[in-house]
């Protein structure tokens, strides 16, 4: 795993990060040492604004571990962030596809996770 120059929630920091390619201009969410679209190593870590739009949702009612079962039901969401990538996160159970959302952070099964709420 490539370590991000900008710490984010995957290492316990309250931030969502993404990468921008200096060669093709593309953006990607999963961190790598290169751009998956064009292969260029000219890739930079950036902090995302935390704003986005809900792409899909699924309310998990049956969890598979003791730790996650304590949180049931929890809403897994895919959010298209303003910077052009898609990410998975948690969110309010009332979120609907197309909702404009903003991120905060919460603890889930012993780890910090991004949690989206509707922007009113």
């Amino acid at each position, binding site marked *: 795993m490539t370590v991000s120059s900008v710490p984010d929630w995957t290492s316990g920091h309250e931030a969502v990060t993404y990468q921008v390619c200096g060669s093709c201009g593309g953006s990607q969410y*999963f*961190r790598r040492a290169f751009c998956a679209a064009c292969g260029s190593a000219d890739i930079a870590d950036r902090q995302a604004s935390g704003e986005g739009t809900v792409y899909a949702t*699924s309310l998990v009612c049956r969890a598979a571990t003791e730790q996650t079962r304590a949180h049931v039901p929890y809403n897994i969401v895919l959010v298209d962030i303003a910077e052009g990538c898609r990410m998975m996160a*948690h969110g309010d159970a009332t979120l609907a596809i197309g909702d404009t959302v903003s991120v905060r952070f919460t603890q889930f099964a012993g780890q910090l996770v991004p949690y989206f709420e509707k922007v009113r």
Partner: protein
Amino acid sequence: MSFITGVGLTPFGKHAGSSSLDLMSRAAELAITDAGLRRAEIDGILCGYSTVSPHIMLAIVFAEHFGITPSYAHAVQVGGATGLAMAMLAHHLVDAGVVRHMLVVSGENRLTGQSRDASILALAQVGHPVYEVPLGPTIPAYYGLVASRYMHEFNVTQEDLAEFAVLMRQHALAHPGAQFHDAITVTDVMASKPVALPLKLLDCCPVSDGGAAFVVSREPTGQDRVRVRGCAQAHTHQHVTAAPNLSELGAEIAIARAKKAAGIAISDVRYAAVYDSFTITLAMLLEELGLAKRGEAAARVRSGYFSRDGEMPLNTHGGLLSYGHCGVGGAMAHLVETQLQMTGRAEQRQVRDASVALLHGDGGVLSSHVSMFLERVR
């Protein structure tokens, strides 16, 4: 050329006390006997994986256990698409003259060999270890996400999805080897426990013990002649977060390539065997393969189009949803049933005409796709 010369399938459900190797052996023995061959005539083995008994050399472990010394053997892993991916590889290896009789086999005691939690947990690992798994998604949740989006874009309802569960159960009732033997209704599906909404318990395939096998040969070994007409794959992503939008998923790409390879049109197809891990999987794949228009697959189920006596009989053994899902063997059962239908041996499930069949497998979260056409030759 290559022919599916023999098939073998155990009942799915509970096989307490049977190991993965036991179930593989049982299915393999059935397939080899069905092909009219002796074990010593098998010169190639392809096998899937076992989540209960993982091994870095499963095909060789099986070969030793089963008592054969093949000249070609290894395992294949592309999730739910593994069965058809192995059929495709067997076809090409046999066609190229590398192997004469390829045994394709898989089996797993997934239900009694481990807890349901362990199964769900093992399968959830198809998710991204850093960006997805820590969020606690399950396989039903990955597909629940896809379902929510598909329903949103194409006006599909939960009642629509329930139709697929009802149809698969109806078909399973005619197969003594199926895991489930009680009829269900749309109301039952709607009232079943929420798992990962919009998916409920009866929208999900079960976890099963079972085994399946088939033999792919260069020449027919008997009267039954079922030929691989053409096949193709497409792999667009692994993780649902990285999946393309719905209009760009892999099933459409794979089927377009397979049609070209086979020189066949969907209008030529008489029988369909389509991966159905969840009701949404089946609904989406039918529409992407061109067996129904977007958002209209459920209407076709209601009108009887996919029923045993309909225009396009579908998964007449009950599919993953009701025959059961023991891992790689689960989707191999679709091919076994197809071969039985094409050779007129499906007993009370026999359809009028299964002369040309379309099979499709999906692995991961609509990540890996294999489309295949089989035809009966006289």
